[in-house]
């Protein structure tokens, strides 16, 4: 994939400032985001010939033909579409595939868009969701009523048993990102918290407390990608896709590997290899944080620390923009800023803002290389992008 490195760029980015969008259909919110990203790029809807969306999940407004439904709603007939849904990191995977499509000539201007409105969405989870479907592989698990959080709890508990990770170390992740959110006027939760606050919050699914869990907000965002050549003529500084990798692993809990390796151990090295970089080259990182354990496992699989070492790594303040060597989730992340359900697109948007120097909150000075990493489901999938200016 090395030939793809730097061939395409993100030329427009937009995150809706909304955190509550009562009675707003997610497609209407997507339109706000798409027009926002196109305005940012200096492009028009008529320039768009590629559309990436994964909008058929709960609270996303679409169904099994989501990309058609969305194209119809916004009023375009793209020649390249991609609705691959691998959960929260879908938009990072789609960015990599859009780059390939652009390089191959399938499309010139691709919009990647996402919105969800879980705070008011009136319908229940569709029966075809793999986490509620008691047929096939799920017949051996769904009857026990696992929750999304209890599955993350299984990972966190085993990490504690295998590697000596402590609840305090998990809590430090939430504390650090809340510190970043305090500077972001768009963030849902901005009041600083302590490790003790996290440990004193109600237990949701052990060992995860309420403050180990992300916020639930409405929200959305969009990106515009094009070729390196076209990017040069547009109004914003191009942010090049230097590296990309994705991988899928499992949906069933029984298939969780003993040592907790996640598909990030595949997506990360692929992205670094394509970029010709190593973790030491990353100036700023946005790593999906649905729960405090989520970025910890990613840090290990991506090679920022060794297997089992993420507890001491985060406890040392490494992720803090103020003094840490790997400023991470500078917008406050899913734990404090926003989390409508599939937060991957925001890891790309905040990466772009950091590299362009227009972040809404904390700005890492002179950042040249950013990593955006996401996962889907319960470490079921992973996608990693390395962006550079």
């Amino acid at each position, binding site marked *: 994939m090395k030939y793809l490195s730097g061939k395409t760029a993100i030329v427009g980015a937009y995150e809706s400032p909304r955190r509550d969008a009562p009675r707003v259909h997610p497609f209407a919110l997507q339109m706000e985001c798409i027009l926002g990203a196109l305005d940012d790029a200096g492009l028009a809807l008529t320039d768009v010939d590629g559309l990436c969306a994964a909008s058929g999940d709960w609270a996303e407004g679409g169904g099994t033909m989501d990309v058609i439904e969305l194209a119809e709603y916004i009023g375009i007939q793209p020649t390249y579409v991609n609705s691959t849904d691998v959960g929260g990191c879908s938009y990072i995977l789609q960015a990599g595939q859009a780059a390939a499509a652009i390089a191959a000539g399938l499309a010139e201007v691709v919009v990647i868009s996402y919105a969800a409105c879980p705070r008011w969405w009136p319908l229940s989870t569709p029966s075809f969701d793999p986490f509620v479907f008691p047929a096939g592989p799920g017949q*051996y698990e769904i*009857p026990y*009523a696992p929750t999304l959080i*209890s599955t993350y709890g299984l990972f966190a*508990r085993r990490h504690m048993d295998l590697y000596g990770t402590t609840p305090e170390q998990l809590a430090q992740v939430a504390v650090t990102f809340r510190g970043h959110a305090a500077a972001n006027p768009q963030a849902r939760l901005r009041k600083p918290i302590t490790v003790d606050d996290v440990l004193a919050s109600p*237990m949701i699914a052990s060992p995860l407390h309420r403050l180990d869990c992300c916020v639930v907000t409405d929200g959305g965002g969009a990106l515009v990608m094009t070729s390196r050549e076209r990017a040069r003529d547009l109004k914003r500084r191009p942010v090049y896709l230097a590296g990309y990798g994705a991988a899928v692993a499992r949906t069933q809990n029984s298939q969780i590997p003993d040592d907790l390796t996640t598909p990030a151990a595949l997506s990360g090295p692929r992205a670094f290899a394509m970029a010709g970089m190593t973790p030491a080259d990353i100036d700023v990182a946005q790593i999906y944080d649905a729960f405090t354990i989520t970025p910890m496992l990613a840090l290990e699989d991506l090679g920022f620390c060794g297997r089992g070492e993420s507890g001491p790594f985060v406890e040392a303040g490494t992720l803090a923009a103020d003094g840490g060597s790997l400023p991470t989730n500078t917008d406050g992340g899913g734990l404090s800023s926003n989390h409508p359900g599939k937060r991957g697109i925001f890891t790309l948007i905040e990466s772009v803002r950091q590299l362009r120097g227009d972040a809404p909150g904390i700005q890492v000075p002179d950042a040249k290389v950013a990593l955006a990493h996401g996962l889907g489901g319960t470490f079921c999938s992973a996608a990693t992008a390395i962006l550079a200016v």
Partner: protein
Amino acid sequence: MTAMTTTAMTVLPIPDETSAPFWEAAREGRFLIQRCPETGRYQWYPRAHSIHAPHATPEWVEASGRGELLSYSVVHRSNTRGDPYTCALVRLEEGVTVFSRIEGIAEGSLRAGLPLAVAFHRLDETISLPIFRPPSIAGGSDA
């Protein structure tokens, strides 16, 4: 067995051609897993093919029903009535890992490595759902 521990288990599995022998055995209080006829290796969850030799059809074998606790999470807040309840990964003696529920152990006593044995909850006339308990009380099965 009281109904208390089964209140959250209201979603019934949907058996199919492949899984029918598993659920038939569960009704009789036996826990089946699959073994590859070519490699002799076990697999879980059950499939129509062997993941170790994809053209081979797995054979059913009765597991010992004994294992140990690998990891767990006690669900305190869920949309399902009946919490708290304990979701767990159980490593069977045969080496495969299954996802199930743990019963009969106080939350404070849960720890990795605890010995466990299978028991069955009869949910209706066709489905008896396996769960795991300490071996000393596993005989309380209502299958």
